[in-house]
């Protein structure tokens, strides 16, 4: 059994072995092996040219990665926490995201974003920034929920000729475990039915897939489908619409702040394209629009919990 964290390390290591254009850049990733130890041992294996400790400068990390990428490298940038991407926002959104459309130049960078809450990280170490990048054309966004997908999607991200935000949920690092194929393989940027069902579908990604599975595992006998989006850009519209068609009732679960989140997009898509298939309102469960508080009782009060998802599903099933 491999943890989600090990799977990410593994994917990165395998791809570095397979392709010498791949290099890692970030704060404290070489000597220290990264704040979460994803690149532990990499320095010894790949040397300081391919595992680079950078100055404390997120715009610098993203910007120089772009430069290296356009001349043929495949940089994988680590943000120490996803939250810090706010400091490299402009380079990612304006330089990387618009490059290919404007001038036909590919920017194959991967930005690893350790994201999410649930362990008292507080307002600056718990954010889920994916929607910002979904709202920025030219950037792909993936968010695996299992070790197998974490490895495969990271490899897909690195091989993709476009900038890709790779959301790795910190709360899954050691909690999520599973079998992971050896060697390199690509996981497609499409959705995955995590559990088939027909009475209701819960659509989620990242850590919330586990919350959704747990919440609906035994829900008064209802057969609840759980759709794991895996990729947010591209968004697997066909899979979403298909689930809705089969289940007719939808709960969208999102750990990010509710307004304009990925969940809002999914709900809006359904409201337009699957209206006729719906047997009830499109229900969203998300974090309210507050900074993620530090203290456990406060944090637990805002993050979508198994109970909240259960309640939302029950209500909708009874609708």
């Amino acid at each position: 059994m491999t943890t989600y964290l090990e799977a990410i390390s593994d994917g990165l290591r395998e791809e570095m072995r397979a392709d010498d254009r791949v290099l890692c850049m970030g704060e404290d990733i070489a000597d220290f092996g990264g704040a979460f130890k994803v690149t532990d041992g990499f320095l010894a294996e790949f040397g300081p040219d391919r595992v680079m400790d950078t100055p404390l400068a997120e715009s610098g990390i993203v910007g120089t990665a772009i430069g290296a990428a356009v001349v043929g490298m495949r940089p994988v940038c680590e943000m120490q926490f996803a939250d810090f991407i706010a400091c490299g926002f402009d380079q990612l959104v304006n330089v990387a995201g618009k490059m290919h459309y404007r001038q036909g130049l590919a920017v194959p960078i991967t930005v690893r974003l350790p994201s999410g809450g649930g362990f008292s990280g507080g307002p600056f170490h718990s954010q889920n920034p994916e929607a910002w990048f979904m709202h920025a054309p030219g950037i792909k966004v993936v968010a695996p929920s299992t070790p197998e997908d974490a490895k495969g999607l990271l490899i897909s991200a690195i091989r993709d000729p476009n900038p890709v935000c790779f959301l790795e949920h910190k709360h899954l690092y050691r909690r999520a475990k599973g079998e992971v194929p050896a060697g390199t393989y690509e996981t497609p940027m499409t959705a995955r039915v995590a559990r088939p069902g027909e009475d209701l579908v819960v659509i989620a990604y990242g850590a919330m897939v586990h919350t959704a599975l747990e919440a609906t595992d035994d829900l008064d006998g209802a057969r609840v489908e759980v759709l794991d989006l895996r990729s947010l850009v591209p968004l697997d519209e066909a899979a979403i619409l298909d689930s809705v068609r089969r289940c007719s009732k939808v709960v969208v679960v999102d750990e990010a702040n509710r307004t304009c989140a990925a969940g809002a997009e999914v709900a809006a898509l359904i409201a337009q394209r699957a209206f006729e298939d719906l047997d009830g309102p499109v229900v969203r469960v998300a974090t309210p629009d507050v900074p993620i508080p530090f203290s456990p009782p406060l944090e637990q009060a805002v993050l979508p919990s198994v109970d909240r998802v259960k309640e939302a599903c029950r209500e909708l099933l009874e609708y």
Partner: protein
Amino acid sequence: MATQEVRRPYPSPEREAADDGVALLRYMLLMRFLEERAMNLYRQGKVPGSFYDGFGQEAVSTGAAYAMAPEDRLCVLHRDLAAHLVRGVEPARVLAQYMGRAGGITRGRDGNVHFGDPSLGCVGMVSMLPDMMLVATGMAMAFKLRREPRVALTWFGDGSTSRGDWHEAMNWAGVQRLPVIFVLENNQYAYSTPLSKQFAVDPVQRAGAYGFPGVTVDGNDVEAVHAVTREARERALAGAGPTMIEAVTMRMHGHAAHDDMRYVPPELLEEWSRRDPVERQERRLAERGVDVEAVRNEVRAEVDRATEEALAMPMPEPSQATEGVFCEGEAVPLGDGRPVR
């Protein structure tokens, strides 16, 4: 949170030097003992998340904060607990803050040293380093525009000097000759990253290229830090603009509680442990005839009381988690109009 009552006074910079020396020691000890206590609480599982301290760097925040007047404004960083104490934050509230209790400065909303007591004229830091450089610069800008004889001060680390906001603040302060003091806490590392990977030239040398002086001071000598900050404050008040102070020190603990500091050569730690700022000030005061042991005991007792008090405080109510995202009433300026301390 925005309670704006008058708080207990803090020692004024006009005090006797000898007396100041004791006060300086007192705050350093208070920081050290509080952080040691907090680390114990962390080990007992009573401090959620992570825990950061400033062991070995107590002189930097103590000396600099102590040079500031009540009407000055501070953005306090993560190794600078003593600055809060100098301003008058009660030790119990600090421990409560670490433990995420309702009585902590942020009432459980933020953790660690991410706090500031607005009524004491302090803005709590955000994690993004060194964003507070610009906030301090902006406060100084307001003081200058309003022709108020007040100064803003903030700290930042060697690592923080690499980020763009550092530059924007330095440049802005220089162009407008603002009454702001930037204290570079050069503690040899940024997390695991040594200075050599952070910059090619010591950033104190950049100050001149922004149009103001950069001075280096022994960051483990609290009286020296105090003196140099006092001078910088006078320069600022005289309209001569910003000063960058580089306090050279050493981060004697890991970046945070989980960090075993493998990456620091043991000799380096050994060397710096001989320069411990607390012991140094104790020796100095002992020579001046001060009963240092009495001060230690006093502070220890204060921390014991604070611990009890903090542990008795409840956790915040979950129902409050979504309150206060927006200010609904009047915008009350930082410790405004009142003798904040």
